[in-house]
């Protein structure tokens, strides 16, 4: 009965949030784009052919029924490469964001909740790293770690870390002053329990919104690193790698640049629209 009542309450809350979300056209468009992107990344590689297969009879071919998005200089199918590239982008975006959250949230929670000596130390470090532009920081890290998908994820993850720590800490500072936290202390609750059950859940909304901003940033980051040769290495298809190649054939085969560019733009736009919508729906100050 207890669990049932709780589950029923949660389900009702989710339904209400979904109702509010559904009524907004832009976030819904964002959701469609994001779902499309994820489908392309997950199912695309199963449907399309081998991204490395070369068709020597059709190099730099324009879009046609045989090659929906045309082919590149080695006669590889652009659509197959876009689909596999989506997988790389999704991995880089999601994994690096997860990494940043997994490391950053605990640090932010502890720094914000305990303050004392830890908070100023952490925050000064965060301020110093935030002084570097995100991409410059990521490029520097990638250069140290070495070029590979793993390197991209690590570099982007650590480059995102300061922002995550700062947002978490800011929320914790606000939440720990709430009376329900005082009530939990008055109940005799321990710090661990208060942080996990009272503070963290009430910081979740802005962190979810932050994730929807971080993922597209990381997608652009991956493309940039790969474009610069610091990320995923050819022949692995990545949107950034594709852009590097396309650069040389911009006048002969402009579609080679258009497709990856368009995909990066759409995926980024999708996450950002979704994030805006989530911010409106999840923000408790914007009514219920």
């Amino acid at each position, binding site marked *: *009965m*207890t669990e049932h*009542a*709780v589950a*029923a*309450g*949660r389900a*009702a*809350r989710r339904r209400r949030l979904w109702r509010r979300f559904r009524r907004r056209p832009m976030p819904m468009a964002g959701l469609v784009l994001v779902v499309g992107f994820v489908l392309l990344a997950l199912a695309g590689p199963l449907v399309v052919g081998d991204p490395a297969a070369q068709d020597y009879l059709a190099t730099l071919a324009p879009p046609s029924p045989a090659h929906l998005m045309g082919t590149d200089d080695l006669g590889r199918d652009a659509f197959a490469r876009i689909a596999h590239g989506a997988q790389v982008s999704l991995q880089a975006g999601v994994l690096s964001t997860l990494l940043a959250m997994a490391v950053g949230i605990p640090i932010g929670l502890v720094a914000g909740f305990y303050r004392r000596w830890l908070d100023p130390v952490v925050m000064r470090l965060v301020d110093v790293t935030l002084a570097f532009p995100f991409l410059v920081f990521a490029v520097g890290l990638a250069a140290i770690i070495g070029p590979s998908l793993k390197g991209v994820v690590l570099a982007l993850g650590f480059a995102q870390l300061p922002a995550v720590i700062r947002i978490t800490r800011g929320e914790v500072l606000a939440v720990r002053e*709430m*009376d*329900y936290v*005082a*009530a*939990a*202390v*008055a*109940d*005799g*609750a321990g710090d661990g329990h208060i942080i996990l*059950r*009272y503070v963290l*859940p*009430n910081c979740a909304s802005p962190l979810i919104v932050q994730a929807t901003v971080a993922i597209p940033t990381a997608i652009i980051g991956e493309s940039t690193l790969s474009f610069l040769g610091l990320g995923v290495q050819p022949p692995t298809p990545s949107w950034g790698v594709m852009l590097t190649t396309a650069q040389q054939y911009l006048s002969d085969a402009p579609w080679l640049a258009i497709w990856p560019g368009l995909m990066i733009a759409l995926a980024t736009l999708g996450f950002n629209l979704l994030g805006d919508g989530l911010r409106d729906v999840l923000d*408790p100050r914007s009514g*219920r």
Partner: protein
Amino acid sequence: MILRIDNLVKHYGQVRAVDGLSLEIAHGEVLGLVGESGSGKSTVGKCVLRLTDPTAGTIELAGRDITRLSRRAMRPLRRDMHMVFQDPFSSLNPRFTIEQIVGEPLLRHKVADRRGVSERVSAMLEKVGLRPEMRSRFPHELSGGQRQRVGLARALILEPKLVVADEPVSALDVSVQASVLNLITDLQRDMGFSCLFITHDLSVVEFLADRIAVMYLGKIVESGPKAEIFAAPRHPYTQALLSAAPVADPVRQRERRRIVLGADVPSPVDPPSGCRFHTRCPLAYDACRTDEPPLTDTRSNGHPAACHLITADRIPDAAAHR
């Protein structure tokens, strides 16, 4: 005595929120602690529950000194006391259902298993006048009055000996306030807990307190049985408070003689010398500016006040102000 506070001091940096305050609450007694903003009344409540650490002084709960107990050592004692907060919107965890909120103390102190929690939560919700289907709701689905009932249920589910209620009805509309005040009265009579009721509203403590203590800038200026305080307030500040609260009767209200206080409330960072009230007191004289009057029970009737005029037996009878 369930609670005995002796010479409590709490400074937040420069701010002297509570500056040498003593009070006692007997078993089953409701003490109304009255003061205006900045008087330090809420800080007293927080110190009693050890939500903040006192700077000096002692706090005894049922004869045991809890002033310097560690958080761990405090934990078992938290069964005996709890708090009701002012703001019905920030005092309930928005991510918990009502059942989780009210049942939390039971699980924390391991006085019931999951099944027992469910039963006791139902019983408690009924006691505070909430329907059983409220259990699966979230706080934001409830009205302000309903939330305050949930706050009461959470505070009372362990049947504490002492409840600290910090302005529990100030954020509520009059009609809702009336039902919550009735509820607190009923619960207090049924369960017999002692209560430190903190408020700025004299009419609320007149309704439900047994004894009243009036605070001004971190100190108690007067305390005594409710009837005494209202019939014969002795400290000029209490008199001014009583005369300033408008009564809902235009004929009477417009004939009342009001004591108009001069100046602003001084900052608790730098409280005035001597009697802290002297900068606003209409009756202040030389001694008030230099010497601090002690809280003295001149008539030995449990109604002490801290005013030079009283010790000098010069204060005018102020019953006419009401």
